[in-house]
């Protein structure tokens, strides 16, 4: 945790500097007759962020914050496995949306989580994975009139069938 604390502060300091630099694309000072320039607000806020990261680093040197005193790893083997399986599952879910549609990606993600990670029965996993996207479809597309991504063209026959029910 101790090393992670200073690395995180370092990353946030770099982010602050980057945002300060990016803010200077617009005026960061006071323009007579117009008030503060468009870049002033984010520039000075990023500057305060940078000062805060320096204070976090100072506390790290003095070992006053709990993470700076801890020698435990940020993620143990189990934690890393969880992050890869669950976090990776979410990334996979989002990546699939533009390929097999929001509802298709939802079904795949639910089945992956329920059956592979949750160790639920195949029957329950399949039921929830198939019923939930259909329910979401009728709620969002039918009731709320919100169109979700329908993926690549090969999904169209399924959507045409579903749209014929609600329209």
């Amino acid at each position, binding site marked *: *945790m101790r090393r*992670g604390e200073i690395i*995180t502060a370092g990353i*946030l300091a770099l982010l602050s500097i980057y*945002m300060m630099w*990016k803010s200077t694309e*617009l005026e960061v000072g*006071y323009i007579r007759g*117009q*008030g*503060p320039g*468009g*870049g002033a*607000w*984010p520039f000075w*806020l*990023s500057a*305060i*962020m940078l000062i*805060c*990261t320096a204070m*976090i680093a100072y*506390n790290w040197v003095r070992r006053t*914050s*709990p*993470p700076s005193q801890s020698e435990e790893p*940020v*993620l143990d083997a*189990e*934690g890393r496995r*969880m*992050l890869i399986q*669950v*976090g990776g*599952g*979410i*990334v996979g*879910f*989002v990546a699939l*949306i*533009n390929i097999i549609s*929001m509802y298709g990606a*939802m079904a795949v*993600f*639910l089945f992956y*989580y*329920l059956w592979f*990670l*949750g*160790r*639920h029965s195949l029957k329950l996993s399949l039921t*929830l994975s198939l019923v*939930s996207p259909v329910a*979401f479809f009728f*709620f*969002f597309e039918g009731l*709320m009139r*919100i169109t*979700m*991504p329908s993926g690549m063209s090969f999904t169209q026959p399924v959507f045409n069938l579903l749209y014929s029910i609600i329209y």
Partner: protein
Amino acid sequence: MEILGLLGSGLLEAIEPLNLALIFIGVTVGLWIGAMPGLGSVNGVAILLPITFLVPPGSAIIFLAAIYYGAMYGGAISSITLGIPGASTAVATTFDGRPLALQGRASLALVTAALASFVGGTVSVLLFTGFAPALASVALSFGPPEIFALMLLAFATFVGLGGDDIPKTILSICLGLVLAAVGYDEVSGAPRLILFDISGFLHGINFLVLAIGVYGIGEMLWTIDSTRGSITMSEAKLTVKGMVSDAKEATRRGWKGTTIGSLLGFFVGVLPAAGATPGSLMAYGVTKMVSRNPREFGQGHPGGVAAPEAANNSASTGSMLPMITLGIPGSPTTAILLGGMVIWGLTPGPRLFVDESEFVWGLIGSFYVSNFAALVINLAFIPLFIWMLRMPFTILAPMIFVLSVVGGYAAVRDMHDIWLMVVFGISAFFLRKFDYPLAPAVLAIVLGPIAEPTLRQSLLLSSGDPMIFLNRPVAGPITVIAVILILLPLFKVIRNKMRGQKMAA
């Protein structure tokens, strides 16, 4: 007496069979729409507006007001049960509602939310009935310096009373404010902070992208990591006796938050361009500030649920006031309602009370009835919400992830933002590991779009002199309190050092 007579006739109109049915349908629909992450009252009112042309204008506005009320109640449900703020108005409810649910006390949180919402709604309707024209003129005297001072006070409560690492809290607030500044500069229209020149940042960052990322993804990853995924979401149990006991505890520990939320929420709601979101966040901050145990806030204090819930309901009525009396909408939802009124042939403004008194008092009467209907329907649904929480975690967790992604997309309709939400979620997981408080960042991204323009307008008014925040009668005291709160941690450090020196001597 004249007002009571008009109110009486308004109440009679509200309980006519058609209107009463519309109130119950509207509240129920609103409750479920509000409970869905990413959807709020604005979606419900906008989507159902065309349906209202089937009924007379008086019934139509009653139906939409009922949806508005129902959605305000519903926003708390996903904040408490799923830990995802259903709408910006329910962000502050997550701060204490979710910890209560994780402690197996979701019933207490839901009952507190329902009761506080009811009280907030009732107080606001009473204020609306008695002081509508007077309050509208006071609200108009609030200029940019006063509104910015209020925003500063909301941030200051997190710094002074948060109990978290101070540099990390300030960093979190600034990060939220900078993220809120991404997109376009409102004054010059020039693109601003287009990070890594990715065009998706041109439309800015919707607060929901950060809120759902932090609470729907980051917080869930943290829960799975810290418990190794082997828990049930909550051990909440529900009995009638338990609900009565929860109601007693909610009253005992939440009365202060409810009172503050009801009054503050109404007044902030009345301010043009403010609305229920700043109202609920400020009510949370002020309740924490005046509490004897501010450190319990954020850990699962009923007052932390009561204050924002009373405030957002109170503000939803308050924001109708400038719409009806002046024709100025106080929130996006009231802007749509205003549009509806114009389509129905009504002209909002000072003459509405005189020319269309039947319509106005029927609407006010419907506020009373909607408020009561929302309480009854909300309490009736609590067993269902508790049942949801008792699902195995391995079923609930993927459902929350799915709701986060779908709800996020429904709100922003852009895949760039969904990817950003995932990035925020994973970053929030790591930041949480290093004790960075993330609630201030969410608060800041919500209030940023109000804080920056009011600061710029104020400095423009004063030709760059920051004393404008101190030498105005209303803004001055608020700014002084905010500065004291910001400096409070420094005073504490000095006091502790002096005590240490005395002990050593």
